[in-house]
């Protein structure tokens, strides 16, 4: 017991203690002072209200109170636990800090309150039309109600149907088969279920196996393997195509068209032309290495086959067209006769393609007739085939000089009869042999020639297509592989509630053009004052900046033009009648020299367009004699002539007799839109929006009403209340 505690102990207590001490001293005078264990005195129970704090927490000493009996162990444990639990409370935060925390928490709570409104606000902003006061609340509640009652209201038959049934009981009923199936499914036994599961697992295993296999195959780097694979695939495709041709000719035809398109693309591209890195390296090696030579030849052969123009059967039409084509070259340089220059190759191709198609059609029709062809066509076929074969041989012979081929071709064309022999003599390659054999056979079999011809072409094209497809797939696969991790990252992004606004209105967020009441917006006063000086300065600037302007004009990006394409039918007749009109033109303008007229007109136009010097001399200046008397050339007079700078060359400067009038659209220019307005991204989109009329003279009444519906409608004399929480889903009202 400490002294302090003693201090508070009552008098009575002190007396008692003293007495005890005295008694003990008397009883055991020799014994050393034995430490006496503290005993809870009765007075201790009366704890003073004012002095708790100074004490250490008093724990009852269980050694003293509780003897080691099993009975007390529980209590012992409890006490121990309570001992562990005690800890002092932390000091409270300072007031400003506490306030800050409180504010933070409250703000976050309110934020959640506001977040509830996000969806409502977003949907409101996106809506194209709104009527105030908002009716959405009512509607929403109604829909909720109807949703609740939906099942009750749902009937299999409508009221009308029921009525009809009452009248006429013999109404046919169609049982839907699916329902029966569903019922069956429900009654599956355990065994069946297990079986089914087994099957499914088998299927899955198979799928996995296939996937794994594909993956393995994809990893194989061997080129040879891939080549073989490709060839196999091509073969398969060809087989498929053949089957298709027999079973479904229309589909086959479609496929053919696709192939034809691929061919066209090939013709435009530089593939298989021997310009690639690989081909060049092979070329280098070709001199010594037979294999590479062969490969190159193959490659070139592919390109030859793909880019080959179809030889057309020589009809009387064809001859006529040829003569027509040759006509304009013979006539003079009358511009009317020339017509628009079409790329020779393209036009030829188009013609050939058309004829090819028609031919296809014919063969389909005539397949059964087995009508014999003219001798002319046979000869032509021969020729074409020979050419093909020859080209092949040429390719093998002189790979390094592909340009020479043309010449040789021409030579052989002149002597078509010799060709066959030559071909036969130059059969080194097995492939060639096969082909030539095939072709020879074809000549013999007149009936089948067309079909076979097509097929041979098809073969090449299919190869081409498949190769392309493969490469594409590979690229895609690679891209997918790359993009996947990025996608995963994106998933974690916050979901955006914003939706595209339903009305695509142009947003013009600009300052108003604000002018004071009495000012003229067009002419500024300063502009009025500066007359000659201003002009001169402008002129000077122009002359100075001439070179710059030149540069800028060359760099200038062409302005976005709005092409008003009317839906009006095109009155210009195409292709077929073109030649006739040309003919007519030639006849009509035989005598006139239109070209000259044009050039004359252009000269006048150019002259007119040139800026003229400004003579600022006033009449009467420098002449004392009055009017009617010839003036001498005076130096002073020259001073008042403002020389105009040289202008930029006209756009039609070196375009022959073409006149480009750049001022034609000046008037309309101020009405044209220069930029695509905000929510639109492309000129096309914007044009579409403009081109669609909305007036009731162009569209039906209902559409018109819909188009002119205003964005915000209010009821006259009705107060618009602010929204309340009833609008929100899940908030009880």
């Amino acid at each position, binding site marked *: 017991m400490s002294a302090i505690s003693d201090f508070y102990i009552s008098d009575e207590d002190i007396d008692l203690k003293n007495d005890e001490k005295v008694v003990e001293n008397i009883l055991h005078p020799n014994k050393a002072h034995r430490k006496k264990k503290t005993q809870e005195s009765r007075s201790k129970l009366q704890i003073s209200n004012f002095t708790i704090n100074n004490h250490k927490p008093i724990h009852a000493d269980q050694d003293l109170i509780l003897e080691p009996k099993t009975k007390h162990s529980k209590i012992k444990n409890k006490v121990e636990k309570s001992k562990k639990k005690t800890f002092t409370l932390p000091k409270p935060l300072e007031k400003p800090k506490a306030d800050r925390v409180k504010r933070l928490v409250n703000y976050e709570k309110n934020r959640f309150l506001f977040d509830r409104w996000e969806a409502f606000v977003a949907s409101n902003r996106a809506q194209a039309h709104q009527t105030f006061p908002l009716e959405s609340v009512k509607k929403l509640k109604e829909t909720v109600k109807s949703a609740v009652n939906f099942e009750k209201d749902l009937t299999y038959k409508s009221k009308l149907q029921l009525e009809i049934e009452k009248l006429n009981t013999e109404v046919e009923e169609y049982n839907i088969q699916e329902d029966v199936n569903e019922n069956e499914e429900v009654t599956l036994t355990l065994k069946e279920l297990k079986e089914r599961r087994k099957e499914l697992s088998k299927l899955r295993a198979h799928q996995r196996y296939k996937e794994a296999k594909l993956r393995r195959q994809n990893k194989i780097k061997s080129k040879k393997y891939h080549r073989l694979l490709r060839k196999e695939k091509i073969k398969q495709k060809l087989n498929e195509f053949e089957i298709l041709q027999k079973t479904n000719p229309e589909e086959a035809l479609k496929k053919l068209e696709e192939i034809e398109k691929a061919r066209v693309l090939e013709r435009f591209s530089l593939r298989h032309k021997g310009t690639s890195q690989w081909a060049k390296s092979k070329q280098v090696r070709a001199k010594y290495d037979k294999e590479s030579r062969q490969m190159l030849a193959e490659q070139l052969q592919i390109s030859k086959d793909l880019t080959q123009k179809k030889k057309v059967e020589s009809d009387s039409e064809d001859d006529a067209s040829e003569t027509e084509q040759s006509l304009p070259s013979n006539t003079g340089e009358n511009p009317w006769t020339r017509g628009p220059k079409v790329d020779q190759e393209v036009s030829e191709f188009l013609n050939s393609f058309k004829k090819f198609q028609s031919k296809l059609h014919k063969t389909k029709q005539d397949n059964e007739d087995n009508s014999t062809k003219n001798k002319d066509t046979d000869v032509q076929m021969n020729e074409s085939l020979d050419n093909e074969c020859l080209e092949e041989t040429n390719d093998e012979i002189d790979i390094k000089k592909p340009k020479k081929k043309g010449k040789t071709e021409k030579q052989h064309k002149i002597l078509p009869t010799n060709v066959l022999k030559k071909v036969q003599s130059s059969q080194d390659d097995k492939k060639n042999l096969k082909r030539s054999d095939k072709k020879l056979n074809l000549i013999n079999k007149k009936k089948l020639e067309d079909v076979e011809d097509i097929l041979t072409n098809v073969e090449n094209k299919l190869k081409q297509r498949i190769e392309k497809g493969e490469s594409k797939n590979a690229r895609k696969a690679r891209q997918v592989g790359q993009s996947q991790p990025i996608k995963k990252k994106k998933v974690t992004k916050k979901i955006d509630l914003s939706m595209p606004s339903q009305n695509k209105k142009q947003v*013009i967020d600009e300052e108003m053009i604000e002018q004071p009441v009495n000012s003229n917006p067009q002419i500024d006063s300063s502009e009025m004052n500066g007359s000659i000086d201003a002009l001169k300065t402008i002129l000077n600037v122009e002359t100075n900046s001439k070179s710059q302007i030149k540069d800028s004009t060359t760099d200038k990006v062409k302005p976005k033009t709005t092409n008003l394409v009317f839906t009006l039918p095109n009155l210009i007749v195409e292709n077929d009648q073109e030649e006739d009109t040309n003919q007519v033109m030639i006849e009509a303008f035989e005598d006139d020299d239109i070209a000259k007229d044009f050039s004359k007109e252009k000269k006048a136009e150019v002259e007119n367009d040139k800026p003229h010097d400004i003579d600022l001399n006033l009449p009467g200046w420098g002449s004392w004699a009055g009017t009617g008397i010839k003036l001498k050339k005076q130096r002073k007079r020259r001073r008042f002539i403002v020389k105009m700078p040289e202008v930029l060359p006209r756009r039609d400067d070196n375009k022959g007799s073409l006149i480009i009038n750049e001022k034609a659209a000046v008037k309309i220019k101020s009405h044209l839109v220069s930029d695509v307005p905000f929510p639109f991204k492309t000129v096309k989109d914007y044009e579409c929006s403009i081109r669609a009329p909305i007036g009731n003279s162009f569209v039906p009444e209902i559409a018109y009403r819909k188009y002119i519906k205003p964005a915000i409608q209010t009821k006259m004399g009705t107060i618009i209340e602010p929204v309340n929480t009833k609008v929100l889903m899940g908030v009880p009202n």
Partner: protein
Amino acid sequence: MKVKVISRSADQYLRNTKLEIHKVFRNFDPDLHPFSDAREYTRALNAVKLEKVFAKPFLGNLDGHRDSVACIAKHPTRLSSLVSGAFDGEVRVWDIPQRLCVREFVAHNGIVRGVTYTPKGEHFITIGDDKTIKTWNSLMPQFGEEDEPVNTVLSKTVVTSLSHQKKSNIFATSGEVVQLWEANRNQPLKTYEWGVDSLHDVAFNMVEPNVFGACASDRSIILYDARDKGPLRKVIMKLRSNKIAWNPMEAFIFTCANEDYNLYTFDTRNLKKPVNVHMDHVGAVTYVDYAPTGKEFVSGSYDKTIRIFTADHGHSREIYHTKRMQRLTCVHWTLDNKFIISGSDEMNIRIWKARASEKLGPMNPRERNALRYADALKDKFASHPQIKRIGRHRHVPKHIYNAQKELHVIKKKQKRKEGNRRAHSKRGEVPYVPERAKHVIKEVH
């Protein structure tokens, strides 16, 4: 020989009554209307010109106050009634359609700082410079009776502004502190302080009724929660905000009228920077009020003009001014979204149309459709230069024009200087700061 005759039935072209519109037969085949867009463009051009012809927004004024109008309050349930307080302590109740003052009395010693109706419109509360908060009956006193307040409360502190909660009898006043009052108590329910000497405006959120905002003299806007939670957050701007207005349709959006000629729209959940900066005024903006649709708001300024902004646009779509209108003290958008009421320094209350060229009153369907068609055309061709030019052209007083020119010069100069700085300093040293980020100093919590 058979002769073919054109014949048609009378039903197709005759009217049943003379009121019926003549039937017009149209072929809507687009091929037959190759010039449809050109024709519509012409119509749009005419429409936009006519809009200018009919743009006469000023409807009339309520005159009677003998000192500047200090504050106005709209009746929450009646469109025709209005209360206004003046700088001389006078309060007037107006009948708008008749343009008559139906009631006038002196409510306070000194300026009437704020007026507001109770939610049901039975009473209105005024506060004045004499530190009193007085509640008045909306009904006119009987003949011979004098105007007596129903209740008078003496506040311990100065009160400068007043706002009533949407659907309860609680209202807030600002002054040295923000106080929450209940209608029939003489002591404030709560008092909020957050280290500010004076607050000059307070406004309750109209959607979430327990949140309200206040503008303080330390250039800050403070958000409060009325449910014994005290202030929530504070955002300090470069210059002081004069007035705060909550969007009635978008709970978390509010706009404040600032001393730096701009208005700022904030999202309560992200106060770091405003959602939008609305420019165009050339003087301190003193008042802002939202249209009940929440799509637009109107602002009054010290530059003697009223401007109407589309809520999500940075520039105004309309400017109203008259020669005699002086500094604006308050502008309100009526609850039917049709009119704007403005009170200004020169003792008049003015009534304007919210859309300058709108035709008021009932219309027959054809007329209405024609006007709607014109509007639709204007929207369709809005970005065509001529239509844009005509539609956005406004005459303004010379002082506005000159001030604007001056501001342009100032802005240009600042931009140039910044550009120069950027050009002559290390890369990234002078960053590009978006306009929205320029005006907020910090967000305090």
